[in-house]
Every structure is written in C-alpha cells, then in structure tokens.
C-alpha cells in the first residue's frame, strides 16, 4: 500500500492564507498534513504522546513564523516536516541525557494503545537504524514521499537519498531477520535447535 503525496491538494492559496495568519488556512493545512506528520513522528520516537507533542510544536512554530514563510506548497510541507524532525531529534537527545529508569509505581495516565499498534518487530528493527536511515524509510514507505521530496525535506540531493535509501532497506531487512529469529528462538522450547543468525 503506497500512499499518495498531498502535493496536489496543498495548493499555493493555502500557503498565502497561512502567511496571512488565517485560522481557516491553518485548519486546512492541519487536516491535510497532521496524520502524516504524526505517523512520521511516531515512527521516529515510538511514543504516540511525544509524537503528538512534536506535531503540535510544529504548528505552533508555523503560527509564529507564518509571515516569514517563503516558497510554495511544497516548501511549506517540507518546512513542517523539518520542524517535526528537529523536535524528534531534540526528544531523542533528551532521552539519551535522561534515560528512563524502572519504577515500582504505576503512572497515573495509562499508556496509549496506539503507541503499540502495528508491527512491534518492524518498529523494533526501525529503532535500531540510524536516525537518517529511519527518517528516509518512514518518509518514503510510510508517508509515501518521492525521492525528490525527501531530498527537499532533508536539504540534500536525490543521489544521496537514493544511496541512503538502498542502504537503509538492506539494514532494515537484516535487523528484521535478527529480531524475528530472536523472537522465534525465545518462543521455542529449550533444546530445540535454532537457525543461525546472519552476520
């Protein structure tokens, strides 16, 4: 299933409305892009709450910087994806500085089931990739962007995106095989021989 890009519906009149700080224009842009942005952030962070915060932060930054936004609809979309990506990178750095610790107390708010919906082994494999590889795979195969659009978001050229995408796919297949073989080994009873993991 490949999703279509929204470049045809996010037209330049909406961008003019955003520059004019029109609430209707903002609502239209949000309706068009919020789910894609949330999927991107959730793929990066594997945390639906943090992903929602990243999307909200991106639209708040857009509301503050609206008059200074340049370019057409593609530029506006790339701007929003870059904003979400930077928020995700900040969150990843914050987690590295303050890693989560096990606690004996239960949190007051329960964990959202949406955070774990989908494919746990695939998400586990994605989280083992580098940030750049993960970004490219999510943008290309989850959101459905073309190589040119990914190059615009990452501020690079299409050759670099092609090469990185090929490496990321190879790496993901390898990680996925590792994760699934470990999962099958754990589910098998003791004494059963397991297949060799690829190096």
């Amino acid at each position, binding site marked *: *299933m*490949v*999703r279509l890009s929204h470049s045809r519906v996010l037209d330049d009149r909406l961008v003019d409305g955003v520059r004019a*700080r029109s*609430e209707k224009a*903002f*609502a239209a842009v*949000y*309706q068009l892009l*919020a*789910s*894609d942005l*949330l*999927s991107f952030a*959730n*793929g990066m962070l594997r945390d*639906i709450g943090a992903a*929602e915060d990243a*999307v*909200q932060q991106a*639209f*708040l*930054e*857009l*509301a*503050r*910087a609206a008059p*200074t936004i340049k370019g057409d609809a593609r530029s506006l979309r790339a701007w929003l994806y870059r904003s979400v990506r*930077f928020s995700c990178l900040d969150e990843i750095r914050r987690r590295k500085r303050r890693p989560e610790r096990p606690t004996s107390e239960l949190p007051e708010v329960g964990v959202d089931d*949406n955070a774990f*919906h*989908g*494919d746990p082994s*695939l*998400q586990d494999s994605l989280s083992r990739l580098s940030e750049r590889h993960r970004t490219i*795979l*999510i943008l290309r*195969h*989850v*959101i*459905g962007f073309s190589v040119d659009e990914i190059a615009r978001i990452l501020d690079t050229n299409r050759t670099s995106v092609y090469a990185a995408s090929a490496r990321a*796919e190879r790496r*993901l*297949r390898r990680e*996925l095989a590792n994760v699934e073989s470990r999962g099958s080994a754990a589910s098998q009873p003791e004494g059963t021989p397991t297949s060799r993991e690829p190096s």
Partner: protein
Amino acid sequence: MKQDLKDRLAALHIEIDDAVAQRHMDSVAHELLHPQTPAPSRRRRARVGTLLAAAMLLVLPAAAFAAEGTVPGDFLYPIKLATEQLRQIVDPNIEAEHRIEELETVVDRAGPVDEIDDRLADAESAVQDRDVPADLLDRLDVVRDRVTTEHRRETPPSHEQSADERPQDDGAEDRTSPPTTSPPTTAPPVTTTSQPATDRPPHPDGTGGTTVPPEPDRPPRSDAGTTTSHPPGDRDHPPRDG
C-alpha cells in the same frame, strides 16, 4: 525490498485522533489571536552563539593584556586581579611581582605620598612569609630606597618655616639640600644708579657702567640702609614731603 515489507511499513501509518486534533487547533488559534514574539530560529541562535563565543575569545585576552600595567584605582585593575588568581596556579610569585611593579609605577609617576605608602605596604605584605626570588627582593629594595630618598624628603619638617623667612628663589639646589633651621639670609641690597657696577665693562658712552633695575617681583627694602632712586612715574605713591 520485498512488497510485503513495504506493506508492513505502510501499515505503520496512523490517523490523528479528533480530540487531539481539536486540542492542537485550539492552541494554534490562541497563538494566532495572541501572537508572541517569534523565537529565533535554530540557525540564527547558533550564529549568535558563535559570534558571542568569538567575541569573548577576542575581548578577554585583550582586556587581560590591557590590564597588565594597571594600578589600584584604574578601571581595568579588577581584571588584573582576576587573571592574577588564575596565573597564580602556575606562577606563585606573580602576586609579589605585580605588587612590586605597581609600587614602581606609582613611584615613577611621583604619586601622592599616601598612595606610595599603600603600595609599599602591599608589596611588603606580598613578599612576606613567602619564598620570593632574590631578584624580586632586590627590586623591592631598590624601589624602597627610592621612596626614602626621593619622596620622603619632600615631606615638610615638623618645625615649618614661615613663608616670609624662606629663601624665595634659590633654584634646584635648595630642593636637594636638607632643610635648615638657620635664619634666612636677607636679600642683597639693590644697587643704585649712583654706584657703578665694577664687574661690568664700561659703557661705550663713558658713563662707566650700567644701571641694574630692581627686580620687579621684589619690593625695595627701606631697612637695608640704601636709598633707591626711582623715576617718579614708577612709584605707586607720590613722595612725601619732609
């Protein structure tokens, strides 16, 4: 990549919840109605930080260099003290060296006696109970001698002479000679026009000498036993009769 893996990746796409979307749009609408000052972009913040760091790297060493020759009371003297604290880690004699340099500077400038005394006390306390090199102690001795020979002499003696009794214009020789308590000598009598000057060659017109006019800043003294003959126009008062 196999199609099944692409499908698995595409299945990770999620839709945003309506309640979450409403909450986001409320916050955006509030931001649009009450705009705040836009936060500087990351690139701009990084550029400002780089400029500040570069300015600090340039200004701090320049200020430390400019503060090297300062003395207490100068504008940059606190910077000198701050850098001195750091340099003391590698050079324990830097404080003594600085205090002696400041004393030398104040003595060279011929500053007030009180200031020289303060700097001398600071320098002596800086070398006290410390393993200070001999050359620094020699420098301190030299400047201490200069203080006693050059500046202490300028302090007035306890039994001051009155201004009338002091010799008025004795030149630099009097500044180097020790103060004396002997009564001052009287001013030499002013020669009159009738007395020929024996140490001068005769005038070509045959008058036998030149007349020496009285010094303008010294009034003629009537108690010297000589009479002066001024032209009537030079007198402030008309001659008295009798």
